[in-house]
């Protein structure tokens, strides 16, 4: 009798242990899954005022059939010694929706043109008189993706060029807030700050009837030295019509046509190698 009782007791003990282990395993799995959820998966926390101002700007640009703007861009560069410096350039941008783009990028030693005419993207190195073209899709959004993802071409200021700047900007936002009213080069603006997690960005949007961006700063917190990209905008023009010829590249005398290489990925060579 004693033996049977002892056996039952042992069996009950083992069952308790088994169920405890199952419960612990379940808890462990749940906590592991919870830990896998990154902050970026959480619902963005955006100040309604910041959202409203950003949307107003996005809608204004999206509804503009054409515009031109000048930008002065400053970009942090880290030297090999670890010292950080800023390098500058200017960008003259012309956009005609839905399928025209022209940018001229100038700096002391570089001078480049980028053209998109609804059929092709053309790069023009004005210093060396080289140009190259690649076929492009029929809309600006698709052309921007093709340029960046297939050819590694940074189309300047593309955040303002896309068909829906607000939706494009909102895609990866984790948090956003309205810092308040400030002036940029004497122009009253609303200062907004957003975070994408590892990247922060700020935008200063003009108050009043023309809610255009006057300044943008992107801070790359996940890179050494947290480099920043700053663009300051001027001469917004929504009145002057932009005819076709502005977006169509005509090679000047003596210009040489060269290939445009596709992005090189691991174990992949340029398509035009060996030609």
């Amino acid at each position: 009798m004693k033996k049977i009782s002892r056996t039952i007791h042992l069996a009950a003990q083992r069952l308790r242990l088994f169920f405890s282990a199952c419960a612990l395993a379940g808890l462990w799995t749940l906590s592991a899954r919870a830990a896998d959820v990154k902050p970026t998966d959480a619902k963005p926390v955006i100040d309604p005022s910041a959202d409203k101002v950003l949307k107003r700007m996005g809608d204004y640009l999206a509804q503009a059939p054409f515009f031109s703007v000048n930008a002065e861009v400053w970009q942090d560069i880290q030297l090999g010694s670890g010292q950080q410096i800023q390098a500058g350039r200017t960008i003259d941008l012309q956009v005609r929706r839905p399928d025209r783009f022209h940018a001229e990028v100038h700096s002391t030693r570089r001078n480049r043109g980028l053209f998109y005419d609804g059929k092709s993207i053309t790069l023009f190195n004005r210093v060396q008189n080289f140009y190259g073209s690649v076929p492009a899709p029929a809309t600006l959004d698709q052309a921007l993706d093709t340029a960046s993802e297939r050819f590694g071409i940074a189309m300047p200021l593309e955040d303002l060029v896309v068909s829906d700047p607000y939706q494009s900007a909102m895609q990866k936002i984790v948090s956003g807030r309205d810092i308040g009213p400030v002036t940029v080069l004497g122009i009253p603006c609303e200062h907004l700050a957003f975070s994408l997690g590892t990247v922060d960005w700020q935008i200063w949007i003009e108050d009043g009837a023309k809610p255009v961006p006057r300044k943008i700063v992107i801070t790359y917190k996940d890179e050494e030295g947290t480099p920043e990209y700053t663009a300051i905008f001027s001469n917004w023009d929504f009145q002057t019509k932009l005819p076709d010829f502005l977006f169509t590249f005509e090679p000047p005398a003596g210009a040489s046509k060269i290939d445009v290489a596709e992005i090189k990925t691991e174990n992949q060579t340029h398509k035009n190698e060996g030609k």
Partner: protein
Amino acid sequence: MKFANSISCRKIGVGLAALLVAWPLLYAQRQQQSERAEPAPRSEPAPRSQPSRAPVQRSQPAVVNRTNHGSVRRVDTHVAERPVQRPVEARPGFNGNHDVYVHHDVDVDVRHDRFWHGFRYGARFGILPVGYISLMVGGSPYYYDDGLYYQQAGDSYQEVYPPVGADVPELPDGAIAIDAGGQTYYYAGGAFYVQQDNGYNVAPPPIGVTVPELPPGAVQVAVNGGVAYQFNGIYYRPVFADGVTQYMTFMP
């Protein structure tokens, strides 16, 4: 006694359960912290006396340098790799700035004068640069300093093309890592170096690779009606890569 054992068993059980629950959370948090803390690829300067330096770390494959792009849409693109850097050394008659960041898809103005940028084939000097080393390549004597090669010509020294097969203890300043055909090359001054046990060896130039700048002293030529450049028997064709002008090696 039995009660005490039961209490301690319960304590252990609770502790174990807490550990099992907390572990994944702590691990994940630590992993996120380490992801955040991971710096961008950067090569640290090494003392000149070191026989060799660690290879350049490189970025993930693809795409537009995001800092250069300045686009919120493209924040997932990768940072560019940085060239090998070495400490600045004073050289008589050379005021180049060795302390620069260069990458082929950075569309900004930064001076990038290297010692070897001054290469002129056949240029003669009465003395060798401070810090030169002697090499034997294919039975011929050479002298080397920071990407430049010299041979004796009478009572002077003449700049010559980088001889394939030369072994040097460290890479020239500003060498850029290039992967081709499963091999990592380090490009500087028109030479393609490969790492070996005790330094670097000048390899035959790989064909079909893209370099961000022409070798110093490359001569413009016309090949099949197109623009090309020639340096030490190798041809370079201009090409837009990553949206900016670079040069691809080829043989006509």
